[in-house]
């Protein structure tokens, strides 16, 4: 949340968008969770690749 406090200023462009909380940011680099996402994203991409060939 410190990053949000530092980067977001009232009524600047970035004031009206969503920003990730610490929870979201933790899971972005959580190795166990990302290993699971690695498999899931690869499967999703392979489905798109298969549909496109």
């Amino acid at each position, binding site marked *: 949340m410190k*990053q*949000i406090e*530092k*980067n*977001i200023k009232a009524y600047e*462009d*970035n004031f009206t*968008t*969503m*920003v*990730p909380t610490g929870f979201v*940011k933790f*899971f*972005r*680099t*959580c*190795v166990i969770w*990302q*290993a699971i*996402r*690695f498999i899931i*994203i*690869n499967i*999703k*991409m392979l*489905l*798109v*690749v298969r*549909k*496109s*060939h």
Partner: protein
Amino acid sequence: MAKVVIMGGGVSGHTTATFLKKWVGDDHDVIVVTPNSQWNWIPSNIWVGVGEMKKKDVVFDLAPVYAKAGIDYRQAKAVSIHPEGKEASEKPFITIEYTEKGKEGQTEEVEYDYLVNATGPKLNFDATPGLGNGNGQLGPNTVSVCTADHAVHANEELEKIFEKAKTQKQKIVVGTGHGMCTCQGAAFEYIFNIEHEANKAGVRDNVDIQWISNESFIGDFGIGGLHIKRGMYAASSKLFAESLYAERGIKWTIGAHVSKVEKGKLEYEQLDGTTGEMEFDFAMLIPPFAGVGLKAYNKAGDDITGDLFNPAGFLKVDANYAAGAYENWKASDWPKTYQNPTYSNIFAVGIAFAPPHLISKPMSSPNGTPINPTPPRTGMPSGIIGKTVAHSIYDLLTKGEGAELHKASMAEMGAACVASAGKGLFTGTAAALTVYPVVPDFEKYPGLGRDLNYTFGEIGLAGHWIKHTLHHMFLWKAQLKPGWTLIPE
């Protein structure tokens, strides 16, 4: 024995040449004409541009690969196409000019039965005063990551900025250098990699990072943006892209046509007609793309360049170039076979084919300056198109001229894209995206134009692992190492 000539050895041309040669074996000749001696995995140039990779990590020599494949490789640039031959001969040919060391400037006529234009783009730096050097090359005021050598130079300049930032404030600007640019994705990746590296170097607080682009909204990416399912919503790419810029403390200026660049300063005009100036210590601005400037002549020697190419220099194919206004655009406007309508033995793949129109909605300032992203034809679509044309030519060679051509419309294919936001085995992140179809089809998918079951995106470490894996996979595939045909485009 037929001769198939492929002009260009980038992603699409290399794909066409290598698959076609594998299929035709010694029965037919496959000739590649490309001015480059090395193949470059361009998506990794952004890592060269921040010093996380070396040039040698993203390139390899073409000659031994083509020798292994049995492909006739001419290190030369194509100059002109003569699709009707010349007075003394009916045989169509192209003229080439060698760039190979020791043969520089030598010209030659190369006859063909089938011709594939895969020349990619001319990096049109001179379209913006001060962005180029006046001779078509990158100028002294900014850097680029469009080629491996550009990226090496960009990193050298960036290191100087980081060194200065240890003691004083520095301003970095990244984005597009003209109102008609494409490839926002490369600039997107570069700006977040710079931000990531500035943090690692401990100088982030002294570096002010600014985005400038011709997109009417952040997250347009030249494909009119996309929607992805997240948290039970179908959310716009604008929301996710803005969120990332806000999170990383990067300011943005959008809907901007950079009209002039000087040392340490650029001028721009925005969609609302306002103009402004932006000062910088370091700027990486993507140039607009144009065709490479090929000429075409008929049998009598008359210039027919305008018949074969559109005004930007891209080769006309089986697209609907008369669609007119945005409201009339349809998915079916997009080409399927990439065959030239006048000369059926000429095809164009990758960036070299002329798109029927933009994908993003056309926009211009009150002064009439067009400010909109032009359509991307890179990455996965260019590989698929290259392989599709190889299939078609193979069938034409083996089944005769009546063979049905293979099809691969960008309005009927998806794309997987991984945009790096910082490199590191455990600290890196990347946005992993898929979009289906690339060109939105508002008739088939009313409202959003895309199939939400196949259009998704998320940012995280997994995306970085995927991008790094793809780097090695595609370099393996392009070098025709064991199992290369199993790796999809």
